């Protein structure tokens, strides 16, 4: 069993003993099983799934760091994270559209602005994707 904990600056999102965790990292999706080698990696926006007693617990994450410690402890520090069932699709959609519009109309003075908008769009797309996928499964 893995001791799994995911935190954001707004608090602990999920904390439990799980069998395995699938995480989107910048170098591709990885699944962490018990006895994994100590690892530090960077997350990208996407879908994170933990398996608890065979049941998937889905979350959307947007950037962050995963640390796999030597004794099967997995800690994730995410910039934002949300349980799939808590995602408000309409709001996510609206936020994405807003960001895309800003992207179109604005002559970007700085690369930072551009990067931030890009990140927002990616984050919202990840949220929408995760929410849609898991909502369908529940029904």
């Amino acid at each position: 069993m893995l001791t799994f904990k995911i935190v954001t600056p707004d608090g602990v999102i999920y904390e439990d003993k799980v069998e395995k965790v699938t995480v989107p990292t910048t170098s591709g999706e990885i699944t962490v099983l018990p006895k994994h080698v100590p690892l530090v990696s960077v997350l990208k926006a996407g879908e994170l799934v933990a398996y608890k007693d065979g049941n998937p617990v889905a979350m959307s994450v947007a950037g962050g760091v995963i640390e796999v410690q030597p004794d099967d402890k997995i800690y994730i520090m995410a910039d934002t994270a949300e349980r799939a069932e808590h995602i408000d699709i309409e709001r996510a959609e609206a936020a994405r559209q807003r960001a895309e519009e800003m992207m179109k109309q604005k002559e970007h003075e700085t690369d930072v602005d551009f990067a931030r908008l890009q990140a927002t769009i990616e984050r919202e797309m990840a949220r929408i994707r995760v929410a849609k996928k898991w909502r369908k499964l529940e029904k």
Partner: protein
Amino acid sequence: MAVNTKAIKNRIKSVTNTKKITKAMELVSAAKMRKSVESALNTRTYATMARDLMAHLSGVEDKTKYGLLATRPVKNILMILISSNRGLCGSFNSNIARKAVFALQNKNELSKHILDSNKEVAPAGEVKVNILGIGKRSASLAKREGYELVGVYNDIEGSKDYEKVISISRNVIKDFEAGNYDKVVVAYTDYKTSLTQEPRIRQLLPISPRDLDEMLGNLGKNKNSAVVKIKDGTNKFDAGGYLFEPSEESILKNILPKLVEVQLYQSVLESSASEHSARMMAMRNASDAARDMINELNLTFNKARQASITQEIAEIAGGAAALE
């Protein structure tokens, strides 16, 4: 005596009004406190985790490669001083001020870098101190103590100002990398309980696993004890054992600035939780004092009233006796 009753009555009225205000402020602070304490506690897990991760990684890297880890001999030091915007919060501001002034008086000690092998990097000559204030009160402190103030942010209230804190930390990082400052510390108030808050000083840059405050607390004592203890004390975090994906360099470049942001954000939240708690306590004490005062004044008023009645009766009785 009869002259007095009116004055006492006015006094009671004004104290009652003051009590109403302090009571209202107490309630407002209590509500704000609940919110800010919650966000401080929420972020604490994240910040602790970030610091632990840093401690695990601190042995790994070739420090010279990353700007944020550079331990240059200190010529310029920046202190980010977190105070409140408004007063009426008890000893909150004076506590943090005392702490900051004490640290800056020992500025040579403050500006030393302690390296792993108990070696020190001594400051280079006279250390110049700059202060970056968060909260209006920090400005007057810097002025009073004669330190150069490089800026004051007075629009940061707590958890909703994440973006602003991030931009401060970006600016500080930029300054540090450009060599304008060789060390950055943050003076903030650590929230322990609603009754106790402790002013602390923490090193922000260069990133170091050592707890600066403990270091300063142990002035002249064994400096090795100031290393942040890894949770269960065992040294299972053999630095070389970690796998980095995609690469050590890209990960550290990604994580290090984030660590600084989180530390600063956490300090702001802790300070804001402490401020509201301190204000709530101060206002509660004020309300209690006002209530006591009103009771006392009521007593005096009644006595004065009674005395004047007695006196009038005595005068009437005396007058009647004189007629007989």
